[in-house]
């Protein structure tokens, strides 16, 4: 997979695949939330409402794309692009199957952590540029939340890195040939899932958005496709975190019988459904609860996990 044409084709396939998944998730989430709340969700347009996505697309593309006169125009326009760009860039390092990967980066995991930290700029800048106090509060919360979870997100992965001895996602998957890492790294897995929820800014960590206190937080002033970018960015984030959980803790593409790509997709979708289930059941945390939860509980736990894993590896070698 070294010829440039092939990798460009692959790049486009993955790009289209990710965007289609994000669009499909809008439908999937509404159907699943409906299922868990004993109702149907969209079921009119097309079979089981599957054309709802197309209808939503047409709607959002034809909406007025309004920039408020009091907004900081350039920043206002750039902010929604950042979240989409950073999330899409993160997909570059994910190995979907042994041959299906855009770049085989030897610091893949670090690249992902860097990109996910950058994506918070999108939210913070959107809140700032909107020049609206609710949006600003949302942006501030996003920044504080990022400080809260980014630290233990990185630490939660330290155990995996130690076990695999590499930052390269492909080598991490290869290292799980015997046992998937969620067994030796169960605390790390739980902590990473929680950090992932916070990373995607979904319930119970959707403080920057918080419809009932901040209207819609950072994207109150956004309309049309700019709002759509935040929306798609959120769903791509969910796909990304699910794909990473599958890669880091559940053996990535490995599995019996089915081809590797199938396993990767199945695992990713199971975690996506898990994300939606969490959204369907949990209430939003309070701001101070989130921060003290992150700093006082999750960070020590993640550190403890690193120490214990390190000690065991040292004892074993």
């Amino acid at each position, binding site marked *: 997979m070294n010829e440039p044409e092939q990798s460009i084709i692959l790049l486009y396939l993955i790009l289209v695949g990710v965007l289609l998944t994000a669009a499909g998730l809008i439908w999937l989430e509404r159907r699943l939330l*409906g*299922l*868990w*709340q*004993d*109702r*149907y969700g969209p*079921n009119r347009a097309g079979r089981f409402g599957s054309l709802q996505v197309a209808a939503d697309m047409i709607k959002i593309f034809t909406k007025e794309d309004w920039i408020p006169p009091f907004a900081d125009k350039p920043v206002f326009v750039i902010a929604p692009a950042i979240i989409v760009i950073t999330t899409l860039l993160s997909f570059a390092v994910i190995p979907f199957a042994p041959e299906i990967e855009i770049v085989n980066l030897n610091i893949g995991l670090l690249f992902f952590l860097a990109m996910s930290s950058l994506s918070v700029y999108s939210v913070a800048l959107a809140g700032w540029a909107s020049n609206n106090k609710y949006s600003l509060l949302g942006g501030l919360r996003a920044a504080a939340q990022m400080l809260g979870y980014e630290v233990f997100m990185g630490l939660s992965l330290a155990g995996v890195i130690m076990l695999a001895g590499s930052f390269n996602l492909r080598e991490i998957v290869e290292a799980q040939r015997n046992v998937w890492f969620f067994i030796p790294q169960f605390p790390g897995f739980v902590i990473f899932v929680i950090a992932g929820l916070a990373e995607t800014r979904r319930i119970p960590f959707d403080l920057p958005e918080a419809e009932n206190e901040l209207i819609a937080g950072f994207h109150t002033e956004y309309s049309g496709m700019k709002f759509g970018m935040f929306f798609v960015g959120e769903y791509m984030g969910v796909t990304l975190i699910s794909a990473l959980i599958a890669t880091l803790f559940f053996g990535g593409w490995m599995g019996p019988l089915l081809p590797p790509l199938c396993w990767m997709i199945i695992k990713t979708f199971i975690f996506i459904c898990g994300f939606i*289930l*969490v959204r*369907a*059941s*949990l209430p939003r945390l309070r701001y101070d609860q989130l921060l003290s939860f992150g700093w006082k509980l999750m960070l020590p736990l993640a550190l403890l996990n690193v120490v214990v894993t390190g000690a065991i590896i040292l004892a074993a070698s």
Partner: protein
Amino acid sequence: MLSLVKGIWTVFKHSIRKRETVLYPEEKPSLHPRWRGRIILSRDPDGEERCVACYLCAAACPADCIALQATQDEHGRRYPEFFRINFSRCIFCGFCEEACPTYAIQLTNDFEMGEYHRHNFVYEKEHLLINGSGKHPEYNFYRVSGVSVGAKDSGEGENEEPPVDIHSLMP
């Protein structure tokens, strides 16, 4: 922490629950007889209009959406010359039905009144008046009380005493 996991599990168990949604256009909801829907004007058992154009419904209406004009026939019986309800303003509170002394105005079980143009929500008397007596089949206002009109003389109504002879000294 444990309670959160329990909560997630409870929600997950709803995957196999029956859905509560009534799939409306295919499956009609069952409405109670006192459902407050589209308003009609009824007739008494003799087939005459019940409405006596007393304006009480228009006065009671909180949305101020009833308009009518009283007039009289050759027997001196009052009826509305026109009767107009603007359903784009009506809130289906049923106050008009409660105010009406003759059971003329009644709310029915029909709620499917969607229109594409606003002016189609204005219902005139010919749209409102039905050929039956609605919820009170036996009731006939002029037979119960009132003055002498074409239908009956005074004192001939149900439970009505004959008028007092003011020239007589007898009790």
